[in-house]
């Protein structure tokens, strides 16, 4: 866009241009500056605390000492529950919206509207819902299961959106060819269309995991606060994001470990985010070449 040559005839026009350019560049620079400030601050204070033992030891002294091993285990467990529920449900909904959308018009529209609204619900309300439904109504109590199921509800719209787009992008020729060969719809979907849409699915998955891992408010009163190593899915477990919250707000002197935990969380998200970018870039490339 900026490559379009803008001609300005009047001298004052040029000066205004320059002034505006400085202004907007400052805005952009300011934002970048905050980014680097935050990241460097976290890095400076947290890096020293990072070590292999930090990741493998259990927290001691309310988290002021030791490591985050149990926290990591809880986080992974919650993620596991979240994904094992949201992946099959989300993929199925995406298949319906992408492949059967035309035939199921009103139903598909309703589903889509509901998912759009779901995507906008604030995380604290998810927490309220999770508490009322999973913890109390279903009797699961403060547990990894409750937390994971609540997160599954949050992550569904992200998964569905990405997978649906991936399926829509699969060229129609494949569907025609499969039909002409007398293949049933289910076989076509499972053996041809979904495999072709896998990169989009993975991107959605990675984005969903990223959202889940960053989530705190929805977990505060669903998965519990206990920092011990969980022994079952019905045990309460503390996720990494909650640990950071607890260390910084409720534990005086917990800042050092909070910094380190924040770094671990950011590192995790960075890895996931680059994976998503890498996969989607390569997928876009492949699509372009094929066309």
């Amino acid at each position, binding site marked *: 866009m900026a490559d379009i040559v803008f001609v300005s005839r009047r001298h004052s026009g040029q000066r205004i241009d320059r002034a505006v350019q400085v202004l907007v560049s400052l805005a952009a620079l300011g934002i970048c500056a905050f980014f680097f400030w935050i990241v460097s601050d976290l890095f400076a204070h947290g890096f020293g605390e990072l070590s292999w033992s930090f990741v493998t030891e259990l927290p001691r002294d309310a988290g002021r000492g030791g490591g985050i091993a149990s926290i990591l285990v809880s986080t992974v467990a919650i993620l596991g529950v979240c994904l094992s529920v949201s992946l099959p449900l989300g993929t199925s909904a995406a298949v319906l919206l992408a492949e059967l959308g035309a035939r199921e018009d009103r139903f598909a529209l309703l589903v889509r509207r509901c998912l759009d609204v779901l995507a906008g619900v604030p995380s604290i309300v998810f927490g309220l819902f999770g508490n009322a439904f999973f913890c109390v109504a279903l009797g699961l109590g403060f547990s990894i299961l409750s937390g994971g199921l609540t997160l599954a509800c949050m992550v569904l719209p992200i998964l569905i959106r990405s997978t649906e787009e991936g399926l829509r992008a699969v060229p129609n020729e494949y569907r025609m*060819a499969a039909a*002409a060969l007398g293949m049933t719809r289910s076989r076509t979907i499972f053996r041809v269309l979904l495999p072709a849409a896998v990169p989009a699915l993975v991107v959605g998955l990675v984005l969903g995991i990223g959202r889940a891992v960053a989530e705190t408010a929805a977990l505060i009163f669903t998965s519990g606060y206990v920092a011990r190593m969980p022994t079952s899915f019905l045990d309460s477990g503390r996720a990494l994001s909650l640990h950071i919250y607890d260390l910084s707000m409720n534990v005086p002197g917990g800042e050092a470990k909070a910094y380190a935990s924040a770094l671990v969380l950011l590192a995790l998200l960075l890895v996931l985010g680059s994976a998503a970018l890498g996969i989607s870039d390569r997928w876009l490339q492949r699509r372009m070449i094929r066309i």
Partner: protein
Amino acid sequence: MTSSPSHLRLPAVPLIQIESLSVRYGSKTALREVSLTIPHGSITAVIGPSGCGKSSLLGALNRLSDLVPGCTVSGTVRFGELDVHAADTNVQDLRRRVGMIFQKPNPFPLSIRKNIELPLRERARFSRAQLDERVERVLRDVGLWEELGDRLDDSALKLSGGQQQRLCIARALALEPEVLLMDEPCSALDPISSATVEDLIVRLSETCTIVVVTHNLAQARRISDELAFFWVRDDAGVLIESGSTHRVFRMPHAELTAAYLQGARG
């Protein structure tokens, strides 16, 4: 090269009988009141200008028309004893017996081997050996075995256009169809691949009945036994004339046919 293949000419047992077929897309009529017979074991060429409903005709024969939203088909199509458009007809079965090759080759984004095996797997439980045998057989039939026999696990998308089209034909052949519908199978190919596919079509007619839509009059003259000439009249495709290729080229009944065939440039 005579226009009729030298294999034994069965008395023209009709295999597909089309009666008063009309195909509509919403309010637009693509085909009006077409009545045509496809004899068993022949190669029928469907010719005519663009937009005269030739592809719609093919789609009505294997019910791919079902997949087009807003498409209605009236009239009857009989495939042997079967009423193709009856509500209780097993469509999957029909499409295996009546295969289709598209203008633009469309192999699946899978390996060469998987492309052929995938539709097969739905038919029955084949053993690994049976699958391998069938894959080799059809690839030999289309003349790809020498080139690709040792790289069956390569992606089908890496093949050239001509190879991809022959792969699609092999894939359809694996289902042992009785009829092959081909929608301008050579038009997206370069002349050399086109010639190869054309030779293949003639060879295939020994085991299959073939209906091929083509823009290439010379090709139609070379390979087909029967000819069906379509034209657009009153905004819809209609059948002007049909009969043996030999006769239609020599003595066209309709003036329109004569005029159209005159435009043929070798």
